Structures are given as C-alpha cells and as structure tokens.
C-alpha cells in the first residue's frame, strides 16, 4: 500500500505517505490505500494587504479524514478554508487530489450568510443539486424527493415551506447541512459550524459529519471547542499563521503546543 503522490509531489510526499498510513491505521475496516488521493498544501501562503495571514504551510488532508483546524483568533483558520475553497488568492500550491472545484462544499461562518432573504427552506436545500440541475435544467421527481429526504435527515421535517428568515440559527445551520448533503461533495469545508448553534443541533450535525467521513468524504472544520475536537476529530491542525502541529489530535493538542501557539501569536502582535 502506497500513496500515488509519493512520486508525484516531491515536497508533500513524505507527509502524504505518513498521513495515509495514519488514516489506514485509524480506519482499518475501510481498507483504503492505493486510491488515497489527499488534498495537499505545498508552501502555501496567503497575504492580505502585505500582511501575511498564512505562512508557508505544508501538509496533506488524507481523503475520508475528519480534520479540525484550531488556533487563536487571527491565526488564519478561516483564510485557509477560503484558500481551499478557491475564494482567495494564495502563493504556493494547493492540490485537490481527485476533488474538482464543483465537488467542494463550503459553509462560511454563520454570520456571513444572508438570513433575511425571502426563500424557503426547500429552495435553499434544493440549491445543493446545482451540480445536477445547473441554471436551467428541470428538477426531476426523484430530485425533489431527495430534497425532502435531506430536510428530514437534518431534523427539519415540517419546515420545508418556512421562510429562512423565520429560522433560528440552529435550524438555519441544519438547512445548510441538508444542502451540503445533496451537493455530494468530496471535500467539505466548515467554518465554525457550531458557533451560535444550540446543543442538540450540534449533536445532530456532528453525527452527520461522522457519517460523511465514514463514506469517504474529507471533512475539514474550523473549531474552538476542544472537547468536540477530542471526541469527534481524529486529526487536528493547530494553526498560528504557521503550522504549529498537524497530526493525531491527541498528539497535536498538547499543553506544550498550545503554549507555543500563544507565544507565536503574541510575538507577531509585538512585531
């Protein structure tokens, strides 16, 4: 068992192999291996107005893994997701592996969405079939049924006709998850999906995340809650503009690493 990227990308190769092995160890039942096509970052930097937000990031997200990105405010977590989603310019390289641009689902922070818009939950969720229906094609009966099912699976049964501006933050997030379900994305990027969301919604949505990962989707989420990360996310990237640590969650979230993170951020504020 080897990673095909071992020879394809020289810099990310070593890490990639390590990550794939790590994943195979943690999910022995799935038995991936030869098909492993990770999302690879190579010397990735993002600069806003000459201000470096992310500095020389190297590494890979193996497919089918659940990775948490965590770190202090201003560490570049959201920016990294935006770079992966193709929403900001960057230096260096991002190799999406076998994921194409339209197979990415991206949920921005909840306050970035327009919740005053007068469309129904059903309409919002059906946007998830953009990759099938496009701007003009007809929604088939089967597709409409799928929309209903996704709404049910996220616990919004009975809300299909509700306008989204009448939903709570938790219900709105559920609807966005339902949309992501239909998108059938291989790479799912979530920016603080559980901030401003109630406990039972968080629990339901975490279940959905685990389900996605079990079916081979790569999930990357920016999170703050350490308990959630320890419990659900096998992999963690600790970010402080540069990579502080990246790997198994228990090995990354050590007191030593967290202290280092704080030091790096404090130093950068001084300079």
């Amino acid at each position, binding site marked *: 068992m080897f990673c095909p990227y071992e020879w394809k990308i020289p810099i990310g190769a070593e890490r990639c192999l390590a990550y794939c092995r790590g994943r195979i160890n943690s999910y022995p039942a799935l038995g991936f291996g030869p098909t492993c096509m990770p999302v690879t970052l190579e010397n990735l930097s993002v600069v806003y107005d000459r201000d470096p937000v992310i500095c020389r990031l190297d590494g890979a997200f193996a497919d089918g893994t659940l990775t948490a990105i965590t770190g202090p405010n201003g560490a570049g977590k959201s920016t990294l997701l935006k770079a992966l989603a193709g929403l900001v310019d960057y230096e260096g390289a991002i190799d999406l592996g076998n994921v194409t641009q*339209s197979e990415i689902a*991206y949920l921005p922070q909840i306050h970035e969405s327009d919740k005053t*818009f*007068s469309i129904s939950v059903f309409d919002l969720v059906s946007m998830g079939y953009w990759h099938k229906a496009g*701007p003009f094609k007809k929604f088939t009966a089967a597709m409409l049924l799928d929309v209903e099912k996704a709404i049910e699976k996220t616990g919004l049964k009975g809300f299909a006709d509700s306008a989204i501006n009448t939903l709570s933050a938790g219900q709105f997030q559920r609807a966005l998850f339902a949309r992501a379900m239909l998108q059938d994305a291989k790479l799912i990027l979530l920016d603080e999906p559980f901030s401003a969301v109630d406990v039972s919604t968080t629990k339901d949505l975490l279940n959905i995340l685990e389900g996605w990962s079990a079916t081979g989707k790569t999930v990357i989420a920016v999170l703050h809650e350490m308990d959630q990360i320890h419990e659900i996310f096998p992999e963690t990237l600790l970010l402080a503009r540069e990579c502080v640590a990246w790997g198994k969650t228990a090995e990354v979230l050590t007191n030593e690493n967290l202290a280092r993170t704080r030091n790096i951020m404090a130093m950068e504020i001084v300079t």
Partner: protein
Amino acid sequence: MIHHLLISPFSDQQMLRALVACLALSIGFAPIGIILIMRRMSLIGDSLSHAILPGTALGYVSAGAMSVGLMTIGGIVTGLLVVFFSTLVTRNTSQKEDTSFASFYVISTAIGIILIRLKGGDEEVVHMLFGDAESIDNATLFLVMAAASFGLTVFAIIYRPLIIECFDPVFMRVSGARGGLYHHIFLGLAVISLVAGFRALGTLMAMGLMLLPAASARFWVNSIGKILLVSIAIAAVSSVGGLLISYYTHVPSGAAIVLVAGGFYLVSIAAGNNEGLRKKLLKSRRLHG
C-alpha cells in the same frame, strides 16, 4: 359621480395610453425592484436611473425634439456605460460598489441637466426628471410594453441562477458557476426597464415605482412569488391613483405616482404583519406586559 371622477379621465386617449404604459411598467418593474431590495442594491438602482439621463438628453438634443428611438438608445448606452465604469472601479480599486456607482451617477446627472438646458427650457428639465404622461405616444407605449415583456422573459429564464447568486454568491463561486454573469444580465435588464419608464415617470422618479412597491410588499408577505404579486398590485394601484392626481392637478405624473406608492410604503411600515412596526410593538408589549 365616482365613475365621473375615477373612470372617465381614462376615456381620454392620452390618459389611456399613459395608464397602459404605467400598468406595463408596474409588471415589468416588480421583479427588478425585488432583486434590488433583496440584494441591498437600492442605491445602485437609484444610480442607474440617474445614469440614463445624459443619454436621453443627448438623444433629445440631437433630434431636436422628443424622439423615442434616439433617447432610448442614448439612455441604454449611458446606463450600461455607468455600470461598466463602476464595475471597473470596484474591481480594480479599494472603493466599494455603492461609492463608485454614486460617483458616476452624479457626474452623469450633471451632464444630463446641462445637455437638456442647452436645447430646452425648465419645462423640459422637469419632464425629463419627473415624467410627463402626456408625452406618451404610440411609439413610446410600444417601447414600454416591449421592454416589460422582454424583461419578464429574461427574468424568468435566469430566475434560478439569479436568485442563488443574490442569496449566496459564495456558494455560486465555490460551485464553479458564473454568478457574475447573471448579476450583469440583471443590471442590463434594470437599465432597459428604467429607460422604458422614463417618459411616463421621469428618470428621477422611475426608481420610485420600482423600489417602493417591492419594499412595501415585503412588509406583508415573505416569499419571492408573493412579494412579486403584491408589489405588482401596489404599483398598479399607485399608477392609477397617481395619473388621476396628475390629471386633476397638473403636477408631473411621475411624482404623483411615486407619492401614492410612498403612501403605500408608509402604511406598510406601520401596519404590515411581516417584520413591520406593528410586530415590533406587539413583541415589546408582550415582553413588558
């Protein structure tokens, strides 16, 4: 008595043409007004309505009279030019869309006013800015109806991508869809509609019949389909009311129509059951009482 006051004015050919034109505009304007409000672009819509002035004025100056064809083409050209330059500034500088649109529209309004005054008098200026229902001839009426039909058809065709682009442009970008294309088609439609409306309503007032009914409707209903129907109804009633006021008092038709629509807006703010003042009062009473 009522028939005499409200119906008989429209037996006049001129009034009837104005009425049909305004009703067609009520229908054609509704979808555009809704999108402008939903996308928080009311100000940009306003800028567009000013942007068409120098073009129409140029048409007026060069033709020496109110020539529908030249004024229409001129209006569309300058409207689209302002969209083009504003987008250029927004994309390539740090300035936001509303600032660049506002800057270009004051420039074009100034040019427009000067051009009209070069050829005509105060009356022409007033007619250009505030509308002149009596100037609507068959050619203008045909133009208005064609523009409204064209606008509605295109709107229906691009409805899905346009609504998604308005609601969640980031989703469109990540999905690899060309959201910006639909946004620009929409701005083009807005320009064409505003040009179609300026004879009856004036370049300053056309925006009123586009925005006020949609803004009012939002206080009553909460889905795009329903907002569309309610705003068409409000616009139609405002048109009839405004034309009658203009008929009896000889004030410019555009201003009269917009004033009636403005009345609907004020009533909707106070009495509307969807996010209006009434709901807020009820809520605070429930909290305190």
